[in-house]
C-alpha cells in the first residue's frame, strides 16, 4: 500500500513536471524558432554579400587583365612610333625632294 502511494506521488510529480516543461516550451519555443531563423537569415545574408562582392571582384579583375593588354598595346605602339614613324619623318626632313615626291604620291 505504501509503495503504491509512493509510486503515485512520483507519477503525479512527473505529470506536473511534464506539464511545466510543456508550459515553458510554449513560452520559449517561438523565440527559439525565431533565433534559428535569424541565424539562417544572417548566414544567407553573408553569402549574398560575399557573392555580391565577388561579382564586383570579377569585374575589377577583368579590368586588371585589360590594363595589362592595354599596356602591351601602348608599348608596342610606342616602339613602332620611335623606330618607324620618327625615323621616317627624319628621313623625309633630310631629303626635301623625296619628301615632296612622297607627299604628291600620297595625296593622289
Amino acid at each position, binding site marked *: 500500500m505504501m509503495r503504491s502511494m509512493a509510486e503515485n506521488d512520483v507519477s503525479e510529480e512527473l505529470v506536473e513536471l511534464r506539464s511545466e516543461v510543456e508550459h515553458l516550451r510554449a513560452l520559449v519555443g517561438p523565440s527559439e524558432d525565431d533565433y534559428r531563423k535569424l541565424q539562417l537569415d544572417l548566414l544567407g545574408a*553573408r553569402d549574398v554579400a560575399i557573392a555580391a*562582392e565577388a561579382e564586383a*571582384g*570579377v569585374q*575589377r*579583375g577583368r579590368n*586588371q587583365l585589360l590594363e595589362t593588354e592595354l599596356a602591351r598595346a601602348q608599348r608596342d605602339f610606342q616602339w613602332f612610333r620611335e623606330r618607324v614613324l620618327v625615323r621616317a619623318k627624319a628621313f623625309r626632313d633630310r631629303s626635301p625632294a623625296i619628301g615632296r615626291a612622297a607627299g604628291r604620291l600620297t595625296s593622289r
Partner: protein
Amino acid sequence: MNGNRCTTSEQLSTPRAQPRFSVLTTVYDTEPDHLRACLASVDAQTEQSWEHIVVDDCSQRPEVRAVLAEFDGQSGRRTVIYRSDNGGIAAASNDALTAACGEFVVLLDHDDVLTVDALAAMGGHLRGDADVYYSDHDLLRPDGRCASPMYKPDFSLERLRNHNYITHLVVARRTVVDQVGGFRSGFDGAQDHDLLLRLAEVSAPFDHVPEVLLHWRQSPASVASDSMSKPEAYNRGARAVGDHLTRCGIDATAEPGKYAGIYRIRRPVRDRPTVSVIVPTRGSRGRIWGAERIFVHDAVASLLRVTGQHELAGAELVGGIDLEIVAVIDEGTDAVVERGLRSIAGDALTVVTYGRPFNFSEKINVGVAASSGDYVLLLNDDTELLNPGSLQEMVGLAQDRSVGMVGAKLLFEDGRLQHGGHVYHRGFISHALLGWPGDHPGPYRALAVERECSGVTAAAALVRRDVFDEVGGMNEAFAVNYNDVDFSLRVRASGRRIIWTPHASWYHFEQQSGEHPILDEEILTVQQLWGRDIDVDPFYNSNLAPGRTDWLELPLRSGAPPYEVLPDGRVSWG
C-alpha cells in the same frame, strides 16, 4: 637501326672532330613544310660545331622521306636513320642518342624551328659546372608569325614537378644523359619531362638562358596549340612526376591537375607536428561582407572551424596537425578581444602582451619566442581561412629540408588576388599579378602551380622553427614594411627555397586593420641591404617590363595574341 654510336664519321665524306652539339630530332609523319623548316633552321646555324641526328620512326607519308632525302648531305653534318618499325618517340630518341657524338645533346622536335643563333647563344653560356641548359621560346603560328614568348624563370625544381615549364630549348651534357639512362619507354608524350626530372636528380640546378632560341610550332596535333590533344601524355607525365618523387625519397603522390599539363602533388603530413600560429593584433574591427567583426576572432576561428568545433583544448585539425595559437596583443586592447579568443581557442591559446610602439617584426619575434611548435605560421589578424586543407598543404611542402618558407594564395574580400608570391624586379618590389581574378591560372600557369619565389608575404607564411631561429628571426629595423622581404631574402641566402602554393589560401582584408604607408627610409634600407637581390629576380625574367609584375613583355616582343584552331578548322585570334 644501326646500334653503334658515332656513325657520323662513317657516313660523312670528310671525317672531322667531335662536334660540340648533337641536335637530336625524331620524325614521324611530319607535315613536309614543317619538317623542311626545322631542318633548314639547323643548317642555318651560325655555330659551326654541330651534327644533326634525325631518326625517322617509320613514317607512313612518302613525302617525309623525300624531304629527308632532300636535306641529307646538304650540310654534311646530318645523319638520317630510318627505323624499320614504329617504336614511339622515346625509342626513336634513344636511337638518336646512341648515334650522337657531340659533347652536348640538343632536343629539337620535328616541326619546331631554331633561331639562327640558337646554338651559338647556348655555346656562349656553357660553363664547366652546369650540365643542363634551357632557353626561352615562343610560339610559331600557322601564318608563320611568332607570338606569345614564354619568358621562363631560372631553375625551379618545385615548379618543374608541377609542370614542364622548361619544354624547349634544352641542351644537356651527353655523359649526364647517358648516366640517367636516356629516354624511358612508356612515357611517350611526357618523355622530355621525365628526362628533365631525372636530370634534375643528378645535376641541378640547370642554367637558364633568358633568350628566345626556339619557335614552338602550333599545330592541331601538337601540345603547343591544343593541350588536350594528348591526354594520355599528361597521365604519363603524372606517372613521371610520381616516380621522380619516389626516387627523391619524398612521400607524395602526383595526379593530373586542374589544367592540362599541370600536376597535383599531395604530400601527407608526417609525425603529427605542432604549428604555432603567431597572430599580432590590436583587436582591430571592421565591416566585411556587410557584418562587423573583430578581425582576430574570425582569423583564429576560421583556422579551428575545420574541426567543426569552436572551443577546443589542444586544438587539432584533420590531417594530423596540432595547433597552438599565440596572440601578441597590444597593451590597452579592449579586454573583449582576449575574452573572445579564449572562448574560441581555449587551452590552445597563449597570450603575449606587447607594450612597445608598433613594430611588426618585434611582435613576431616575441610571439615566436613564446611558442613551442615545430613550425610557425605567421598570420595577420585581418585574414580568414579559405581552403580548409591549407595548413596541411604548407606543412607538406615545408617538410622538405630544402624548403625554408611557404607562402599562400591570398585573396581580397572581392575574390581578386592579393598575394601570388613576391616579385623583386629592377628595384620594384610587389606581389605577382596583384588584382588579377582570384581563379585565373596566370601567365604561364604561374598561379596554378607550386613554384619558387623570391619571397612571400608574412601575412600568411609558414616557416620551420629551426629555419626561423637560424636566420635570426625578423629584422626589427623593418618595423612596418618590407620585413617579409628582408626575411625572405635571408631565408634564401641560407640556401633554402621559398615556395608559393595555390593550394593554401586565405582571404586577406588588407589595410582594413590599419594604414601603413611605405616610408622612404624603409625603401632606402632595403635597397642598401639587398641591392642586387631586388634588382634581378631569378624567378621572374629580365625580358619583362620594369615596374610591373604581370609578366608583360618589353616592346614588340609579344607579336600577335595567341591563336586557337576552332573545331571547324577556322582560326580564332582570341
